């Protein structure tokens, strides 16, 4: 029966990735509440309080994210999909209220159709500000008359501080009339605008209509245009373009460019008192909303910055890295790279360098050494007075470094290169290597196959069992086929990657026999979904092809990275051939550590622990059924129970154990109390999972999430991805059959997020339920978040600091950092990008890898890696892109590299949706983005450049000009300068001895926060 074979083929493929789905259970009450499927009353009392706290914080944030994504999607839709003016008008009419508004909780989105000229006024209370405003009013009157006295949109005013009433305005205009700045024409117009014979404001041409704030518009209207002023023309100052005077004829208002203003956008975060020493040293991790991927330099900046500051992470191995390769501690990418490399190869180096006893591990020796070193730095600096004191403190530390550096110099370069190209930092075919490589390959497979089909995997097992073949057999066959060649090569130190060709060949070998049948099956399935559904498992398919399928996919996407780590950890304990005693030792160490040690301050509170645990949906029993790389169970219940039975009592720390136990109660595992073995098993699994999740969370703050996706990364989870997979109730497959793009997305925008169109559907919502429960809100909110396909043709860029410094914000890497409270302007524009398509340059050794270039492709040309043409926008909006590790497209926009040389190369100018947050200055801790002010620029140069370089030179001279010694001393000075800079950023100046005096000598203000240090121009 051909059909059976075809089904078998497709199911075999799908099962490879299906195992991941097994843990994506939705049985836990806590998870169900989080996902919106259950009421929070199912939680215990303590949890409920904590839950409500975080819920309130999250609600506002989710609404704000929805408001932003709705705005961005709308602009892309309006510009791409809506072709006629009728369609465009219908969209704005239906999706917004008469006042042009849409509400997302407390956040309001208002559309604008004009891009009218903007006049910036720094301070409306100043003479200069008011002169500018009077000038705008006069000009508006000229424009109005020049237009034949038709309704005219004149200016948008953006001011920092607005305090204005008509009396003040008239009084100022009258005074201004008598100055030399006002010529005859000006005098005549002021007389017209501000009727000197009448006092009442309704007898004037100028009128302030409505409550105007920092931003308002100026429009003009002829007499009798509105019943309230039949006798005179009017120049209106009004809050928005929805005013009747701005309702100009279509051809006069450039309606084909849609913009959005978001009022009261707020990404919330519990910041706490950052100026305290504890916060300064330990820091916290900011929540970040980003598009596609973060710029690597910025990502590393954030990881190394105060907000993610972990003293040991930053300095222990990186310091050697800096010392080895360069004196440029301010160049974080280099330092970061060196640090990452040394982290994996450091053991070998330190063993050779330090040559201490065999009892302690190399890592321990290294850590201990640096611990002492920095203790010494700390002590000496705390007593140091002035620059001379700092110099002396550094000098003695540098002398200590020399000894180690000398040891490092003795390492043959061949050993270093071997370690680097081997990537894993260990040589030889150990069991750990095997585990790692198998998991690496499995990860590769997962990426290469379509995850969205994995929900079908559950009945794959049943089918294959009947056919006499096991899923793990075929899986292993493929993995081994792939492993053999690629890892042989890897072992020879040639390359650490599996090539596209190898993957395809292995795939063809193992699964090629089903290739044709697979195609047939797909065709058959697409044509007859109902028959297939009925035949195989109606209930199952329905369950997973609807909401749950999408939800599960989301879970899998979020958890798959943690899963890899988890598997790795399990393998290291249970599948590497070590004995039970060693296993026990590892687990004991793991469980005895206090949560503070393991998770840091961030997760030390019970509340945080619970939130972290609740981020993952786990079916603990399912873990014992997952097939491992060796064809046996990865973590068989029998194996683990045998192991656990040898442990008399699990040595859990109180806080750690309590959090896990409470979480298990939340999961509904009540019977664990009566079953000690099961309890221990679950605690072990949860603990390992917990650690893996934390590890991933630490490492992957900004991992790429692919084209058309927004990720919201919190401190305790990998990014929640807002993309089109989350549009649960909006059936794209059904809608896409509609011919025109306008209708296709009608329902999508109409029901986007938990939004309300004032005057249209607000009352209805209230009638149905006065106060919708949070779980319902989450459910409703998430079902329409995400992006539409049209957005893939646009960049999304943060425009803020490009106003001042061309290098501040790369246009292709959008991100917003919490806390962020702002009014946000979202507009369509074009940006200028430089560079040409280029082929990849693979690194051949450590040094060249620092300068390795990844391939860049131009849209509209054939891409051999993707084996397809990536079409560009509209036949003319060509741009450059890269392909990331998940084979997702990442759009690129490089600024002109002025340091490389100026030529007449052709620039790319792709269409871009810009996001411009105007910060709410009433919020003291308000971040949004990283900016620069003049004081911090000076401080940056002094602390991050001058001190390291000077320190390097002084230290270098002290150890006889040996280059590597020079670099090492530069690195240490860099760490000190960097720490001081962070202190300045956060207002913790007094925590760094001597810093305040030093900065004041240099003319830099140290009082108060420099955080956030945004542009001081007030834009």
């Amino acid at each position, binding site marked *: 029966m051909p059909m059976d074979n075809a089904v078998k083929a497709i199911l075999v493929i799908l099962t490879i990735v299906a195992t991941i789905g097994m843990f994506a259970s939705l049985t836990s009450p806590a998870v169900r509440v989080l996902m919106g499927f259950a009421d929070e009353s199912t939680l215990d009392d303590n949890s409920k309080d904590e839950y409500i706290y975080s819920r309130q914080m999250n609600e506002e944030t989710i609404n704000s994210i929805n408001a932003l994504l709705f705005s961005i999607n709308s602009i892309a839709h309006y510009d791409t999909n809506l072709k006629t003016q009728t369609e465009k008008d219908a969209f704005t009419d239906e999706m917004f209220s008469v006042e042009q508004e849409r509400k997302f909780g407390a956040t309001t989105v208002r559309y604008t159709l004009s*891009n009218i000229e903007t006049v910036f006024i720094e301070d409306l209370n100043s003479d200069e500000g008011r002169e500018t405003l009077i000038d705008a009013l006069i000009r508006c009157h000229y424009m109005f008359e020049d237009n034949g006295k038709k309704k005219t949109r004149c200016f948008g005013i953006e001011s920092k501080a607005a305090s204005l009433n008509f009396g003040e305005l008239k009084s100022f205009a009258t005074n201004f009339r008598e100055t030399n700045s006002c010529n005859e024409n000006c005098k005549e117009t002021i007389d017209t605008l501000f009727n000197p014979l009448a006092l009442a404001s309704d007898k004037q041409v100028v009128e302030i209509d409505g409550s105007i704030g920092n931003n308002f518009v100026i429009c003009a209207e002829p007499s009798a245009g509105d019943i309230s002023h039949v006798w005179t023309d009017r120049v209106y100052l009004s809050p928005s373009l929805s005013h009747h005077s701005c309702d100009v004829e279509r051809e006069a208002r450039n309606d084909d*460019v849609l913009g959005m203003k978001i009022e009261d956008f707020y990404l919330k975060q519990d910041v706490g008192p950052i100026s305290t020493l504890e916060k300064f040293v330990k820091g916290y991790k900011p929540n970040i909303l980003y598009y596609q991927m973060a710029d690597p330099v910025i990502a590393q900046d954030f990881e190394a910055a105060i907000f993610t500051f972990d003293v040991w992470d930053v300095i222990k191995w990186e310091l050697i890295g800096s010392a080895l390769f360069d004196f440029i501690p301010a160049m974080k990418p280099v330092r970061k790279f060196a640090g990452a490399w040394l982290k994996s190869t450091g053991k070998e180096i330190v063993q050779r360098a330090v040559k201490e006893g065999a009892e302690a591990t190399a890592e321990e020796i290294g850590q201990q050494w640096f611990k002492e070193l920095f203790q010494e730095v700390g002590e000496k600096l705390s007593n140091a007075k002035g620059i001379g004191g700092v110099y002396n403190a550094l000098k003695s530390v540098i002398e200590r470094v020399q000894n180690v550096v000398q040891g490092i110099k003795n390492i043959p370069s061949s050993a270093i290169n071997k370690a680097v190209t081997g990537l894993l930092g260990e040589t030889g075919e150990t069991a750990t290597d095997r585990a790692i490589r198998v998991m690496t390959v499995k990860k590769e497979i997962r990426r290469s196959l379509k995850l969205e089909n994995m929900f079908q995997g559950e009945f794959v097992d049943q089918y294959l069992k009947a056919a006499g073949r096991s899923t793990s057999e075929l899986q292993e066959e493929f993995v081994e086929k792939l492993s053999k060649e690629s890892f042989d090569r890897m072992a020879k130190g040639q390359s650490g990657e599996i090539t596209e060709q190898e993957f395809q060949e292995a795939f063809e070998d193992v699964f090629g026999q089903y290739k044709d049948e697979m195609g047939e099956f797909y065709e058959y399935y697409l044509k007859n979904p109902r028959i297939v559904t009925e035949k195989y498992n109606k209930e199952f398919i329905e369950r997973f092809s609807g909401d749950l399928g999408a939800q599960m996919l989301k879970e899998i996407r979020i958890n798959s990275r943690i899963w890899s780590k988890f598997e790795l950890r399990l393998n290291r304990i249970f599948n590497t051939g070590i004995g039970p005693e060693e296993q026990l030792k590892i687990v004991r160490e793991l469980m005895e550590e206090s949560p503070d040690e393991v998770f840091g301050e961030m997760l030390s509170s019970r509340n945080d622990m619970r939130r972290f645990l609740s981020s993952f949906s786990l079916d603990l029993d399912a873990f014992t059924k997952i097939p491992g790389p060796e064809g046996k169970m990865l973590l068989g219940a029998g194996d683990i129970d045998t192991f656990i039975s040898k442990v008399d009592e699990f040595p859990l720390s109180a806080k750690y154990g309590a959090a896990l136990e409470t979480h298990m109660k939340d999961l509904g595992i009540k019977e664990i109390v009566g079953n000690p073995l099961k309890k221990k098993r679950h605690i072990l699994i949860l603990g390992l999972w917990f650690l893996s999740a934390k590890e991933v969370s630490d490492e992957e703050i900004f991992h790429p999430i692919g084209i058309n996706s927004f990720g919201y990364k919190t401190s305790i989870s990998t990014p929640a991805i807002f993309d089109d997979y989350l549009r649960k109730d909006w059936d794209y497959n059904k809608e896409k059959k509609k011919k025109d793009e306008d209708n296709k997305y009608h329902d999508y925008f109409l029901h986007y997020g938990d939004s309300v169109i004032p005057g249209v559907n607000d009352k209805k919502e209230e009638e149905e339920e006065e106060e919708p429960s949070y779980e319902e809100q989450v459910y409703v909110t998430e079902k329409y978040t995400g992006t539409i396909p049209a957005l893939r043709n646009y960049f999304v860029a943060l425009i803020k600091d490009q106003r001042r410094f061309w290098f501040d914000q790369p246009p292709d890497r959008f991100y917003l950092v919490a806390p962020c409270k702002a009014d946000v302007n979202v507009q369509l524009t*074009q940006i200028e990008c430089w560079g040409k398509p280029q082929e990849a340059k693979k690194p051949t050794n450590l040094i060249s890898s620092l300068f390795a270039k990844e391939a860049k492709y131009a849209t509209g040309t054939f891409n051999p890696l993707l084996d397809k043409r990536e079409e560009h926008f509209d036949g003319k909006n060509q741009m450059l892109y890269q392909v990331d590790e998940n084979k997702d497209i990442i759009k690129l926009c490089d600024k002109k590299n002025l340091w490389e040389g100026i030529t007449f190369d052709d620039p790319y100018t792709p269409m871009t949706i810009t996001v411009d947050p105007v910060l709410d200055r009433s919020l003291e801790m308000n971040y949004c983005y990283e900016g620069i002010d003049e004081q911090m620029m000076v401080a940056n140069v002094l602390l991050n450049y001058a001190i390291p370089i000077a320190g390097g030179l002084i230290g270098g001279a002290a150890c006889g000009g040996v280059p590597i010694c020079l670099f090492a001393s530069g690195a240490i000075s860099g760490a000190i300068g960097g720490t001081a800079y962070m202190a300045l950023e956060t207002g913790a100046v007094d925590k760094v001895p001597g810093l305040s005096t030093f900065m004041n000598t240099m003319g830099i203000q140290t009082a108060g926060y420099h955080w956030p240090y945004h542009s001081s121009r007030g834009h």
Partner: protein
Amino acid sequence: MKKKLLITIIAVLVVLLLIFSGYVVYQKIKPREIKHDYYTIEPEPWVEDTPFTDEENDVKISVSRATRSKSKFDIDKQEIYDKGLKTLFSNGLYKGMPLGIAKAILNESTELIIGPEMDPDDGVVEAFILGKYEEDEFAFYIFLDEDWKKQIPDTNILYANDLDESTVRKYDFTSYTKGIYIDKVKGDFDWFLSSPRKGGVFVGEINKETLDIEDLRLTNLTIIYVR
């Protein structure tokens, strides 16, 4: 009697209402008298005084006025809202030094400023290129200040839809107002509709041979351009 009075009052009210309505209708349909010629075809009025700044000679080229409010200039680019969005990006170099570096370090260039705000005799070379639709063609107006003429009297304009086939001519310093020189090139330009852009308008010490120089930093040339 009372009835008569009532009818009279109603009649008067009706007449008043008719007069009022007539007035309103008249206001609506009467031909509008144009008092000001704010939007002009000639470029000279676009160069406006800026009476509120400290410097008397300061001028500003009004992009809005030149384009009937269909365009604006922001930092380094002119956006034109006319049948969709078009953008012209300004840039340049002064004696081989890229403008961006000065911008980055000082937030402004002390020797060369590109943009619509100018002080003609402050010793700083200032220039601005403004693009706009004119009838069925596209025109680029090139504004240079007195300082430019003093420092670079031998100025060329190079323009093309494709730089491989460019046209070069001398800048005409004849048209002049308020310390600003005005010249323009007009033609069938469409280079700004494609990406990547192969054309542009370049003004300064430039000719066709300049286009072959691999690194302009090694020269001592001053050039501004829109691309």
